């Protein structure tokens, strides 16, 4: 399951990456994007495809801000795809909303910028899994190479079929909860339900208890 997912993820990323690259090429090179770098990236990409992804490094223009001092402070985001559970904390933490979120086709997509010129590092600080690190541009290893998007598999609610959390999030929650209370079969039925359906399932069970006591006749 996990393996399949990863493969799919890689597929998705490759596409994304290539598309992104193409676009950039068409647009013409950005000032700071040197020939060498481009080559490096393409090579890195190739390498990655062969090896399987370990770390992604994403690089791109940050809102086209290329001039002045910001440029010098530009840092590169390194995302640990193994660690990321897709919880969205980074996305809500980023003051500029640079980390994109979308859900489709049973996947939650997190779109990271390649680099960031803000000096807050809130995304890294907030990440519960410590999946985000910053490296300076100079220190960037050639192995780092960019994809923009992580796609994580979503769980569908057993009742309403709406996607409500990533598989990794739920796995993480299950682990944490088990430390408080051992979850036995039947004692985790709510894990497969979205929060709204959890409320509904308790409502139904509770109402069921009083219905037996209720003396209403009628074919409801």
């Amino acid at each position, binding site marked *: 399951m996990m393996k399949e997912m990863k493969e799919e993820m890689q597929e998705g990323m490759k596409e994304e990456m290539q598309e992104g690259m193409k676009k950039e090429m068409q647009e013409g090179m950005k000032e700071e994007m040197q020939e060498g770098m481009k080559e490096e990236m393409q090579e890195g990409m190739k390498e990655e495809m062969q090896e399987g992804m370990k770390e992604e490094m994403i690089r791109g223009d940050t809102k086209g801000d290329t001039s002045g001092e910001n440029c010098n402070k530009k840092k590169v985001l390194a995302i640990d795809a193994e660690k990321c559970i897709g919880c969205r904390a980074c996305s809500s933490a980023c003051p500029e909303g640079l980390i994109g979120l979308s859900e489709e086709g049973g996947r939650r997509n997190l779109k990271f910028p390649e680099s960031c010129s803000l000096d807050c590092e809130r995304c890294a600080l907030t990440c519960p899994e410590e999946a985000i690190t910053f490296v300076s541009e100079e220190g960037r290893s050639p192995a780092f190479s960019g994809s923009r998007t992580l796609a994580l598999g979503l769980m569908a609610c057993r009742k309403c079929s709406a996607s409500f959390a990533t598989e990794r999030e739920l796995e993480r929650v299950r682990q944490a909860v088990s430390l408080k209370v051992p979850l036995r079969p039947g*004692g985790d039925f709510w894990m497969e339900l979205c929060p709204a359906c959890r409320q509904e399932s308790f409502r139904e069970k509770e109402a069921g208890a009083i219905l037996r006591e209720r003396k209403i006749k009628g074919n409801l």
Partner: protein
Amino acid sequence: MKEVMVRPERCMGCRSCEIACAVEHSESKSLFAAVGESPSPRKRIYIEYIPEHAASVPVTCRHCEDAPCTTVCPTGALSREEISRKVVHSPELCIGCWTCSMVCNYGVIGRQKEARVAVKCDLCPGREVPACVEACPTNALVYAEVKDFSGIKRAEAALKLARGMKPGSAL
């Protein structure tokens, strides 16, 4: 399964069952030592006094079939034992959400303050007859299968009829 059956007309409200229950569920199982124990022993049977009728009624877990408390328990702390058909509570699974207490139609799920978990009747595992039944001086509590209990009630009713008494009155 055998259950604690109640004959409320016989209850005189002495609360011996409550004390026996608490003692049975104490560490020491002795009345004098139990008083000082921590966590303090909790009773699982309740004598309800009805002032309007100056009557007392013992209320205890009915170990319902398809018990609401087991359906709502989110962690499976409350469950029905397949063989004995008892509704049992595992404190290590209890998160203290008290949903069981809300849905219990008898109000017999209590709270162990120190451990912050639910407590309910377990029919005294290891005893042949639950402590409350043994302690009841008027036999208002009977430990019996439902069908046997009906037999007891029938015999009683026949006796009352023979003596010209009202069906609901105490013998």
